């Protein structure tokens, strides 16, 4: 048996096929989860993928956080289940209160799609243990509202507790405070990031395969079920 990883689809989710592919590349089983169905189908972990859930017309992730499936995810995360939010998924996790802060329009107001260098600042989370601390990885960033914002106290707390997992290097692409690209919950089980590791799992279709480590890390966190 392999690890079962749920991949949520909301109406408007786009990168679910990619997240599922990345899960498979890490030799785990991708289990589709539907926004309207609270059943997590016995998965070991959940990925909330990128896209524009419900169109994201109000505010990214604002509507998705109320979906029935998210109520189950919030509950499971409370019990320690690993949850990864990528891009829109990160926005949803922030809206849902699983991660602190919020994501706002990019400082230049344009959507930005580019290959982005990130520094791995914390390799003790459920989704980053396969990296060396301080390693630099190249993965796509593609978002219009990727500027990470939080009040000073929250920022101090995140930095003080080492909860910044990924940081932009080589220039701030979107105005994120402290160049933050991804953060984790206090227990290291919930991680959200704006860049797309699921789009860097093979050199054929991504800039590198640097992103695969995110999904392989999960195996260390959960262990392969017997």
């Amino acid at each position, binding site marked *: 048996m392999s690890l079962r990883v749920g991949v949520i689809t909301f109406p*408007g989710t786009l990168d679910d096929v990619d997240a599922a592919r990345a899960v498979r590349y890490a030799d785990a089983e991708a289990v589709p989860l539907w926004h309207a169905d609270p059943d997590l189908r016995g998965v070991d972990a959940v990925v909330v993928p990128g896209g524009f859930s419900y169109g994201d017309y109000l505010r990214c992730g604002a509507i998705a956080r109320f979906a029935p499936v998210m109520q189950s995810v919030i509950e499971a995360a409370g019990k320690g289940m690993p949850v990864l939010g990528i891009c829109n998924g990160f926005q949803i996790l922030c809206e849902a209160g699983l991660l602190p802060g919020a994501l706002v329009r990019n400082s230049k107001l344009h959507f930005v799609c580019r290959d982005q260098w990130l520094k791995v600042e914390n390799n003790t989370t459920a989704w980053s243990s396969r990296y060396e601390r301080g390693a630099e990885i190249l993965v796509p960033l593609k978002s219009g509202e990727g500027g990470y914002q939080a009040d000073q106290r929250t920022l101090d707390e995140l930095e003080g507790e080492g909860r910044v997992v990924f940081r932009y290097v080589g220039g701030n692409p979107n105005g994120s405070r402290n160049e933050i690209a991804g953060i984790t919950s206090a227990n290291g089980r919930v991680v959200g990031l704006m860049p797309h590791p699921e789009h860097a799992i093979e050199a054929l*279709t991504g800039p590198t395969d640097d992103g695969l480590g995110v999904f392989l890390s999960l195996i260390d966190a959960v262990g392969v079920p017997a």
Partner: protein
Amino acid sequence: MTAIQPAVDTVEHASGTPDLEQPYRELGLKDDEYARIKEILGRRPTDAELAMYSVMWSEHCSYKSSKVHLSYFGETTTDEMRSKMLAGIGENAGVVDVGDGWAVTFKAESHNHPSYVEPYQGAATGVGGIVRDILAMGARPLAVMDPLRFGDPEAADTRRVVHGIVAGVGGYGNCLGLPNIGGEVVFDSSYQGNPLLNALCVGAMRVEDLHLAHASGTGNRVVLFGARTGLDGIGGVSVLASETFGGDEHSGGRKKLPAVQVGDPFTEKVLIECCLELFAQRVVVGIQDLGGAGLSCATSELASAGDGGMHVYLDRVPLRATGMTPAEVLSSESQERMCAVVKPEDVDAFMAICAKWDVIATDIGEVTDGDHLVITWNGEVVVDVPPRTVAHEGPVYHRPIERPADQDALQADTPDALARPSTPEELLALVTTMASSPNLASRKWVTDQYDRYVRGGTVLAQPSDSGMIRIDETTNRGVALSTDCNGRFTKLDPYAGAQLALAEAYRNVATSGATPVAVTNCLNFGSPEDPAVMWQFEQAVKGLADGCAELGIPVTGGNVSFYNQTGSTAVLPTPVVGVLGVIDDVRRRIPTGIGAEAGETLLLLGDTRDEFGGSEWAHVVHGHLGGLPPKVDLAREKLLGEILVAGSRDGMVSAAHDLSDGGLAQALVEACLIGETGARVFLDGDADPFVQLFSESAGRVLVAVPRTEELRFTDMCTARGLPWSKVGVVDPEAGALEIQGIGTLPLAELREAWEATLPALFD
């Protein structure tokens, strides 16, 4: 505020009031066209019928000026060329069998005028429309491309148009989850008041899943699904309402409606997934997208493609606005709607799938025996027409054609007398000047606003010669696409210009290792009522069709956009050509940047002649346009393509970049910058260095071959009669482009020149 209930113009009323004056001229119909409608119906049309005929008989929908010329595409397509074509001109989009059981469908369309009025929404809905065309074939849309033309980059209004169009293409495509894999950005002052927004979509399906829109089977249901119908884009038709109600907004007439449509990409994304599930569950007989002419088009086309009879209960259409008249409902261009024909026993399953996706679906009618399209409104008949007369039997014009009086003078004004750089310093400076000019500078400012990764199938996108996507993850089969057109070449000689566009797109596809198999086009011209424009059009169509016949690849579809002009000045004739190629294994793609393997040799394939008519150099340095465009040799293009594909298959080529605008110098700059690797280049001492560096002779490609493959590759070229010359070596250590005898340009300096231009203009 009470809405006045409109008195509806019924067929019965129309029969009883034969002499009622109708505003057909305001709706764009000519006297004889109106007379023909009366003849077909045996009475005057109702308001609703008039709305239908006027929009369906418009240039945009009926192709009345272009039809007689476009038939030439069919005449020049042989059975052999047709052998891989599963659907061609006349369908929503052409479909090609690409092997492994896969069918690929692709098409381009223009949305030029709306993109000038409201650039963001015009571009957004342009993308939305072409995606629905692909979806209607039963295919999953996989990627989009956006050939764009803008006015003078320095002009104040250009900024508004560029920002709006680029954000609109990105806003819609990104939210829809379709990677943008290529396009064009060209600036020329002829597009100042008339930018071009062409959008291309490509999709794939299993061969057996091809769906062609038709409505056969008496008793089958007609279901409208997707967004509600509102007052979008019915500015023209509002004259009907105002005619009846005195034209005052408060009395039910709608004088000043914007002809602008607003896109909702989220609704379209959901519609895509919903449609694909409907296809997969096999609960649709036929499907039709609602495009330009809304329900007028969908109902009349569906009916005439089937057995001919249909009854539509128009009052059932879910509306977004109150007090809409039947004519308005029929003409509304509200986006994100589709129409399906469904067997009665499948209706429940159909509705359940729509409900799952929260898509509004309404049974609005049925297929009937008989051959009339009957539309009722609260029980009264408002339309009763033979559908073919609406959809397919519109007027056909043989517009006057005349070679422009100044064409000879234009061609005689050759660039030969223009001052050329002669010293090494001048030549070296020119390399940088050209690389930083608006038409040659890096397109990153544009393409960085587009998601090129979503769906995980993008193998090549900007800044590659072609966009390439993997369509089968198990076999790694994929397709490559490129769109091209040099409007200056087409202006100088429309026949040759169209062939040069075809040649360039063909070459771009082959340069990435794919075999070209099919062609689409988007023909953007001025007014068809201008004989000179019609001459350009006729010549371009002939050139393109003859070129395709010579290359042996069919035109599977396309789009014509006329009336692209500011005042009486037409845009440069711009027949954008899109070529689709197939690659059996995307892992052997050829990248554009050099330096993938150490110690590569740089070879130039093809012949270089002194050809500067319509060149970027003449434009940038002298603002000159005259003479003749470069010679076209399609047999050579074909040979070149075969060599590149063979080279890719046998692992002999590690990078390749085609030569086009800006010539060898620009190709070298791009190959170095994209590959982040320097090179040492040696020119032929016996030939003019300016010509070698900047000529735009067609049929040339720069290739990088590993040292170990050099002999094998050049032997193959020699054996097959393809001229080649060794022009340099890749030099990873140099960090510069060194042109021996001319000078050295550090890559950092070149990158600054190449990448800073568009941000400086538009940030």
